[in-house]
């Protein structure tokens, strides 16, 4: 009986294996005489709350319509995928050859995906008339990996200091001229601490893009160099660690900064002088009726810098119609559609020509001014893997078990070993 079972088991294994082997592949029309046919699938996400869903669908439908004016043979399908676990879902679908032709990515994911070979460089497909000059250098940096353009940007975010106006006035700051340097900020923050507030939010359990990385850039340093050399324990880097350490010791940042996910509630309740926020923070504050705030510039020590993601559309390397897909990306990100998309979603248009949509909205206008100093994060395939490692070293330092230098060294070693394991 057991032997029979064994044979059966083997058979089953074969069955499972063969099922695994035959993943269906749909052949789609390729270019014929410069004309395109077939189907293009685009994965998009809910960029707006569910009550605006129909509006978002219209924005995408318009993109498809104007694309079809030029290329009537192509059928464009937009599919909305939820944000959560999208990375895993994309990879699974692409691996099984069931993925989209065009999809949405952010820079560090783009680097990881490009390195795996699932993205198609679009430089050669889109010609020269996609409006290169309309984008800030930092925006193009975010869609470029190892010299190749892998996508075109559709949205940008800018993170900057937002102050509680009442506290700012209480500690003698000028709402018209909020702090611009570490020194100015620290002076006010320390007064805020003396007055019983915390100086700023610092969400240690959050991505380092929202905590330590911007400080490193402000100090003039970087996490990794362009060719993948680890810079994290350079002198300038350590300076950022030291700043956090000082803040923590002096109570400028709350005691639970080590491992908290959100300080925003405490800010809304008026306990914190300043948060590090984006355009979405404005709408959250509006929702909760918090109006006494002042938007300040990203700070600087050696140079002014901050973090802000860049959302882009990219082309899958296993798409059957890469050229049409690339041209669709170009169409989706042109001036008209960029404006329509960002007007609806309240992100910042990556095109300089798009800033006009914020006329009458001083806060958002102000954010667009910082696009030039807004970095896309770490552009390296290990960017996402090293997040918990950098977090951990920063936490060790804040707890006092490591000096800033030791923490920076340990972070550098951890990043290096992650690169070595690629």
């Amino acid at each position, binding site marked *: 009986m057991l032997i029979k*079972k064994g044979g*059966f*088991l083997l058979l*089953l*294994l074969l069955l*499972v294996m063969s099922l695994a082997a035959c993943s269906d592949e749909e052949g789609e029309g390729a270019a014929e005489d410069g004309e395109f046919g077939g189907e293009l699938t685009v994965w998009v996400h809910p960029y707006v709350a569910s009550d605006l869903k129909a509006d978002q669908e219209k924005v995408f439908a318009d993109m498809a319509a104007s694309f079809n004016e030029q290329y009537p043979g192509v059928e464009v399908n937009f599919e909305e995928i939820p944000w959560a676990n999208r990375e*895993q879902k994309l*990879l*699974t679908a*692409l*691996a099984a050859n069931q993925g989209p032709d065009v999809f949405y990515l952010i820079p560090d994911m783009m680097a990881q995906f490009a390195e*795996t*070979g*699932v993205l198609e460089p679009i430089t050669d497909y889109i010609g020269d008339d996609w409006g290169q000059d309309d984008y800030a250098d930092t925006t193009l940096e975010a869609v470029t990996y190892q010299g190749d353009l892998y996508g075109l940007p559709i949205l940008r975010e800018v993170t900057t200091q937002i102050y509680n106006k009442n506290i700012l006035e209480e500690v003698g700051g000028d709402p018209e001229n909020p702090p611009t340097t570490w020194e100015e900020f620290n002076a006010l923050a320390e007064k805020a601490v003396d007055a019983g507030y915390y100086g700023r939010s610092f969400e*240690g*359990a959050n991505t380092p893009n929202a905590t330590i990385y911007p400080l490193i850039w402000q100090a003039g340093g970087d996490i990794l160099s362009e060719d993948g050399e680890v810079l994290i324990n350079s002198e300038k880097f350590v300076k950022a660690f030291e700043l956090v350490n000082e803040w923590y010791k002096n109570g400028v940042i*709350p*005691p*639970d*900064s*080590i*491992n*908290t996910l959100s300080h925003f509630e*405490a800010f809304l309740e008026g306990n914190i002088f300043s948060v590090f926020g984006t355009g979405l923070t404005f709408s959250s504050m509006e929702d909760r009726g918090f109006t006494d705030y002042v938007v300040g510039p990203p700070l600087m020590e050696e140079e002014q810098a901050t973090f802000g993601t860049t959302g882009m559309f990219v082309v899958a390397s296993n798409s059957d119609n890469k050229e049409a897909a690339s041209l669709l990306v170009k169409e989706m990100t042109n001036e008209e559609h960029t404006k329509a998309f960002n007007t609806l979603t309240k992100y910042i248009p990556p095109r300089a020509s798009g800033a006009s949509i914020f006329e009458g909205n001083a806060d958002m206008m102000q954010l667009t001014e910082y696009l030039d100093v807004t970095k896309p994060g770490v552009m390296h395939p290990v960017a*996402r*893997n090293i997040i*918990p490692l950098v*977090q*951990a*070293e920063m*936490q*060790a330092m*804040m*707890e006092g*078990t490591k000096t800033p230098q030791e923490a920076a060294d340990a972070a550098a070693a951890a990043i290096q070993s992650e690169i070595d*394991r690629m």
Partner: protein
Amino acid sequence: MEARSIQSGKQAIPEISRKDRLKRHWQKYALIYIFLVPILIHFAIFQLFPIAFSLYITFMKWPVIGTPEFIALDNWKAFFSDELAWKAVWNTVLFSLYYIVPTMALGLILALLINTEKKGTGFFKAVFFLPVVTSFVIISGIWAWLFRGTEEGMINRVLSVFGAEPQLFLSNSSQALIVLAGLSIFKVCGSTMIYYYAGLKSIPHEFYEAAKIDGANGWHMFWRVTFPLLLPIHFYVAVITTIGSFQIFDSAYLLTQGGPNHSTTTLVYYLYREGFTNLRLGYASVLAYILFFIIFAISIIQRKYFGKEVSYK
């Protein structure tokens, strides 16, 4: 013709009896063919095959995208030089230390209390058992609020009544794991209570009577009679709480994301991160085997040293 009919007659007899035998065989084994055989097939597909497959994966570099590549023992070697993996193992052991004995002790105390069979103990039994059926997610949400690391945190306010300094809890790498263990103790001790309660019920009354005649008071009775007689329960409960403690994941995922400073990165949390965030399925499979080896070793040790059968009769 003669011969033929004889022949066919000869054949006819075994034919009937074979049919009959088949019928009898079917009657006897029908349940097995209908229910056990499909389950065995299911068992082979969803248990045996994945186990064999997981061993195979450990020898591969298995990215989610792209072709898997045979790398022999590299994943296993990587484990031995991976400090974070060892830290995850150590954190898991530490968690067990914080968790097992309190869970057993509290479970036993609760069982003794409800075993007094006073009026209303049934209600309390239900109350103590309630966290067992509640999901980690719900309790974690409440726990996060209770153990906020600022002065406004509920537990910190209680502490301040006793003049203690506010604690950081989940933002402190030596406290975070204890807070998580506390959550698990709260969640699980109701079930150890049930095990102990059943054990207490099965101790024959004569033992207490005999001890009473010897003049033992309640305290002595507990340590001389009840506690030793519960040995099989102690063993059973120890095994299941230990195994459970090595699989801790939910609260580390929900409350601390493995931090601060990796102090709540347990083995299963690390496995999850390596497999499904860092997309190293081969290496994550090695971690799963490490988990298995540890659980296996502990079961053997517990069986050897604490598993002595005790008979009441």
